[in-house]
């Protein structure tokens, strides 16, 4: 066990954790932030996607000891009141069905638009390939990303 100070959503949080604990479980179990979801534990599904220094990472496969002073953003910290362009586009297109994968989808889409503000369809597909949706909302996700890119 070791003490870690993590910068999450702009705040420093102290946690006691074993060094190999995935960031996902630190966020969910130790910090009680439930917006980031567990799907596969092996970075195959993207449900646990958060930002580390603005880049999308699968928090199930990032050990807490490797985070250092990196800035973590979770779905709870993406915007003040759900008004990030990606979140607004998700509402406009009524993207979610069950909703479980959507935190990860939104975080992944927001990271994509950070690095490429006007992605082509092929670029969207490539960037979103790691995020599974069993309900099958892929086309609305694509449409929402296009809408968000226009408003950013």
């Amino acid at each position, binding site marked *: 066990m070791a003490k870690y100070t993590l910068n999450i959503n702009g705040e420093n949080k102290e946690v006691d954790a074993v060094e190999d604990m995935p960031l996902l479980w630190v966020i969910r179990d130790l910090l009680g932030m439930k*917006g980031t979801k567990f799907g596969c534990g092996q970075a195959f599904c993207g449900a646990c996607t958060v930002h580390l220094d603005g880049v999308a990472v699968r928090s199930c496969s990032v050990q807490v000891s490797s985070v250092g002073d990196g800035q973590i953003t979770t779905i709870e910290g993406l915007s003040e009141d759900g008004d990030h362009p990606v979140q607004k586009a998700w509402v406009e297109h009524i993207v979610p069905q069950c909703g479980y994968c959507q*935190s990860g989808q939104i975080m992944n889409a927001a990271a994509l638009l950070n690095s490429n503000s006007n992605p082509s369809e092929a670029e969207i597909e490539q960037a979103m390939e790691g995020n599974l949706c069993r309900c099958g909302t892929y086309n609305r996700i694509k449409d929402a990303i296009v809408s968000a890119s226009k408003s950013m």
Partner: protein
Amino acid sequence: MLPNIPFLQKNKREDQSKVFVPSRRDFLKLGSLATGGLILGVNFQCSGPKGELVTFAPNVYLTIDSDNLVTLVAHRSEMGTGIRTTLPQIVADELGADWSKIKIVQAEGDEEKYGNQNTDGSFSVRMFYEPMRKAGATARQMLIAAAAADWGVDEAECDTKDGMVHHLGGKSASFGDLVGKLKDMPVPAAENVKLREFSSYNLIGTDVPIYDLKNITVGKAVFGADVDLPNMKIAVVKRTPVIGAKIISYNDEKALAVPGVVQVVKIEGSGFPPGLDKALEGVAVIADNTWAAIKGRDALEVEWDLGENQNYNSADQLAEMLQSTKGKGKVRRERGDFDGANSSASKKIERTYEAPFYAHATIEPPAAIAHVKADGSCEVWAPTQHPQWARGAVAGALGLDASKVKVNVTLLGGGFGRKSKPDFVVEAALISKAANAPVRVQWTRDDDLHFDFFHSQSAQRINATLDSSGKLTGWNHHTVFPAIGSTSSKEELHPSDGEMGLGCVDFPFDVPNIRIESHESTGNTRVGWLRSVSNIHHAFAIHSMMDEIAEARGKDPIENALELLGEDRDITFQPEMVDGEYPNYGEKIEDYPWNTGRMKNVIQTLKEKSNWTANKEAGKIMGFAAHKSFLTYVGCVVILEKGSDGKILIPEVHYVVDCGVAVNTDRIRSQFEGGSQFATSLATTSAITFENGQVQQNNFDTYQIIRMPASPKKIHVHIVESQIKPTGVGEPPVPPFIPALANAMYRMNGQRIYKLPFKV
């Protein structure tokens, strides 16, 4: 205990799958509930320092407060279909509520109070459209009566809109102002509750956004594993590697040495057959957090008696099943004389079809929270499709009366039939009892794939005969797959009437000689139901074969289907059933007939909407299938093209659906959009296999589901306008898509597809 799955038992009409079937009893009870008989009465509650807040609750589905808050109760589970929005939407429309100001609360599991809560079988709207309208209309009528009396005007000159009662003459009053006047007003008798004219609906038939939309996009929506209780422990279970295996011994020394692990307990399993609602044999590692529990489980040492399924190999079984279809099976439907047609045929087509086991693979793996309290009662929070079953199963496992078990229903991160089964909820309850603390049992992805209630693998053989004029004279369909009943009984070797009624005996084409047979197979794992159930493999076989028949007859596939459906008529099936019943998804065939005219209209509309003829002339690669399931008529055209890299893509899918009244048009479209993606996975990427009794797939690398780049691109959904009573749309998108895709693949590369999954 199978409180709500009587379909697995034999020969009782009322025991036909409640999975697919609302029981008549429940339906009648609800009918009366919503129309006066079981209404709780006008229930007033006063609160606040001066007792000024008055709450009007004319039935269990809605309350109106004097401060104008309309609260609607969602009593069925939200797993992505939008039902948590759609049913309240019906109540609100009849009531004339202001949708932007309503609140929706989720009911706990209590079927005495709320009626059927088994969210399965695409029957929520079918079963509750009428009761929800009555629930809203009852309240509207009482509010209008109070206002009209106040104003001294005729009730007929009043209506409700946006949370107000309005009189033609211009007077208006808010619901909140009126509820205090309802105290002594009798609830109108059922026959006196008047429903709105269809044309006056403002919400029904529109794209009402789902209630949880905003919460989902900000990460605040609460799913199963998101519930946190004080002092809650987390459990991860090492379960039997082979279904039916038992623990000989285990060593928990290393597990207990993992920091954060607090306790290790054995869970007594149900053995074999495993049952649908029992915990599997296993060892639970209880810890302060999920990671510690996972590591503790990895450190467990367990010696197993692997039991009777340790040599089970699914590929061997599939080969045996396929072989068995060559022989005579148990005849389930018989019309005319197939043998005669066969002996006089001028052309015979014989084909076989195979499909694998499938896992549900909801992105949210099963998880449940239970708290067995000091007084012995138990409270549960779970993403369950069937809270009443969970309640009963937990009560049974703990030896409690069901009244001592409270089941709170969270949002479900996908269901597709998996989360009907309460095994994971039972685990949470057993572990909580042992831990003397609230416990979340958390399944990992390998748990989910190893211990699912799988969609059965299947083999089919179809023999079709044509006479010299090209007429389809005979149809002989053999089907074999481990039955859902095999999960609970070793004697269930044939598919039940319920399973045969899912796209097999309800073969609608007008062929003079039909024989449909089933064959025996054993269950060696846990088999359950997956979105559209046996329709998945039956539709694949039938509509793939229909495409070959069209080709043999030199007909366009759409023209072939329209012709073979025959004259517009209602098909009953029952007179041709052999030793069984045609279940019709639990509805009387008179109430919900199989109407060939509606299907033909769907197909004609599909032909137009998909530009079938022009696209064909332009050389587009297209496949077609039309299939009715869960009483909903669906036609599907899949268009393929080759990308510049040689990869085959699905640029367009066209669906036409006739589901009667369309309540939430956006959620109908979204079910079809998602259904085509779901079906693409079944058709092209997913399969579960067993070796030595053990599932060979562990995660999404080996059990693949479709990802964005290979998913169908544009999915066009056309909803047939209708005022016929509504049916459901959760499952019906899946069955026709797979053969439509397979038929398109044939046109792409000349190879017919006989086995799922196939490579695109």
